[in-house]
């Protein structure tokens, strides 16, 4: 159940940031920097006395951030609020900046994956790691396809983005942190998509683990850089 486009990731690409990562899903590519937990840049009004706040910026390839980027930021925030242990750092802010490098379908999923890698690089405590994937139901065939290119997504009847946490607990159900479905679809199509997403995210989790362990193995060498075999 792994029909993903080739994945690759690099952690620690930016020297100025507390954590950073680049994540490619096929040719869709996102660069994320993480700063914090810090009190710098945190307005009095936004400060929360019992937890850290997440400040997410999603920056498009060109031009200034529009309404679609705001929506993307909101999706990323929804996802990671449920995954980061915000209560560990009260009265602080964790700043996440996601820069789109190339959008070839599944940008939101790639942004979430890159954010997970960058948060790990910054050492932000999380309950689990998060992976995201975009599924689509093809208009003509009704087939459920995972992680498609922009060209292929134009043939979709419905598009579903899932972000799933690696911690499953005792429950047999997957831990879905983000669900964003759009198009024309039925309940059973949705649950089939979720099954496909669970399979795909399992593969992404395995990839993320390998990436991190390779980086640790490299030890004191400066950067962890790895390609999927």
């Amino acid at each position: 159940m792994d029909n993903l486009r080739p994945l690759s990731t690099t952690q620690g690409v930016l020297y100025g940031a507390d954590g950073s990562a680049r994540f490619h899903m096929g040719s869709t590519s996102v660069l994320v920097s993480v700063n914090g937990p810090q009190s710098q840049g945190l307005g009095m009004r936004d400060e929360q006395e019992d937890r850290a706040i997440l400040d997410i910026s999603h920056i498009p390839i060109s031009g200034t951030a529009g309404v679609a980027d705001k929506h993307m930021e909101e999706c990323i925030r929804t996802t990671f609020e449920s995954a980061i242990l915000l209560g560990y750092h009260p009265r602080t802010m964790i700043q996440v900046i996601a820069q789109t490098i190339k959008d070839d379908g599944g940008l939101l999923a790639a942004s979430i994956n890159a954010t997970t890698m960058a948060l790990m690089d910054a050492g932000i405590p999380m309950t689990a790691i998060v992976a995201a994937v975009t599924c689509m139901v093809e208009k003509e065939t009704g087939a459920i396809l995972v992680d498609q290119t922009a060209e292929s997504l134009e043939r979709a009847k419905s598009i579903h983005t899932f972000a799933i946490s690696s911690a499953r607990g005792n429950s047999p159900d997957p831990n879905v942190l983000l669900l964003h479905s759009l198009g024309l679809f039925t309940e059973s199509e949705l649950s089939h998509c979720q099954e496909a997403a669970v399979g795909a995210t399992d593969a992404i989790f395995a990839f993320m683990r390998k990436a991190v362990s390779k980086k640790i193995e490299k030890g004191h060498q400066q950067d962890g850089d790895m390609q999927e075999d």
Partner: protein
Amino acid sequence: MTALPELSFSVFQRLQPAEYQKRFLAQHVRPDGRGLDEARPTALTMGAISTADGSALVRMGGTTVVVGIKAEVGVPPMDRDNVGWIVPNLELAPICHPSARPGPPSTFAQVCSHRLYEILINENAPVIDLKDLCVEQGKACWVLHIDAVCLALDGSVLDAALLGMVAALKNLRLPEVIYDDETVTVANPEDGQEEPPKTALNLHHLPLSSSFAIIPAEDTRTSSASSPHMLLDPTTDEEELTEQRLWVVLDAKSEELLCIQRLAGWVEGADARCTGTGGTVSMDVIKKAISQAKERATYLQALLGDF
């Protein structure tokens, strides 16, 4: 020992809002007297604004949204020359809530506008065929500015705004236009004696939505997590206290789903605040939400009348 002063309900609610709500939910009732799967009374008035080409006023409990559509003649997009534009926008007027701040649209308003845009522009289930808005291929088309203004905000603003937008589109009447060599003339009632005929648009799909606030239920006796409480049509208080919300949009025509989104428990005026510390959606909850949303859609469709 001196007796503690007796605390009134409102003091308790103010100091311990979560506990206050929990006591109600344990009895399967909500602080405003509704059952968990009960929506607030909903009223819809179409054509309330005479200066707009189509309009609607929606009241959903304490949430009031007025939607007006202004049709203008514009130029079709470069890549598709036989379609028109629709531009939906949701404005949370400063009047709507004490925490709403004057100034440029808040992130919340922008995100809401985008969500409504995604529903109305859905290529697989468009509410109106954009080709119907074409006046002259490549030269002129209608631009529909669908402006929703929230006058009072008490939760579930997306539902009220979407219902208002669909109703205003149903109420919309486009005037006759004459395209004549690079110039477009809108038939004007002042020129002729009688009002020229106006045409309504066909609505192909009927998106109707329901919001849910999902609150984990704690069984105090067994201390095991049972299935969470699902509150249909939540108020602002309920939205603030939940860690997650679900927005379900269905098409009342094909009875298929148009959109399902998990939304963070988040309110106007608290843009950078995060209220959630956890919570996930399970397929069980989604299934329940869909079936409740179906019932709600039937009710809302009746409000809209015949199509």
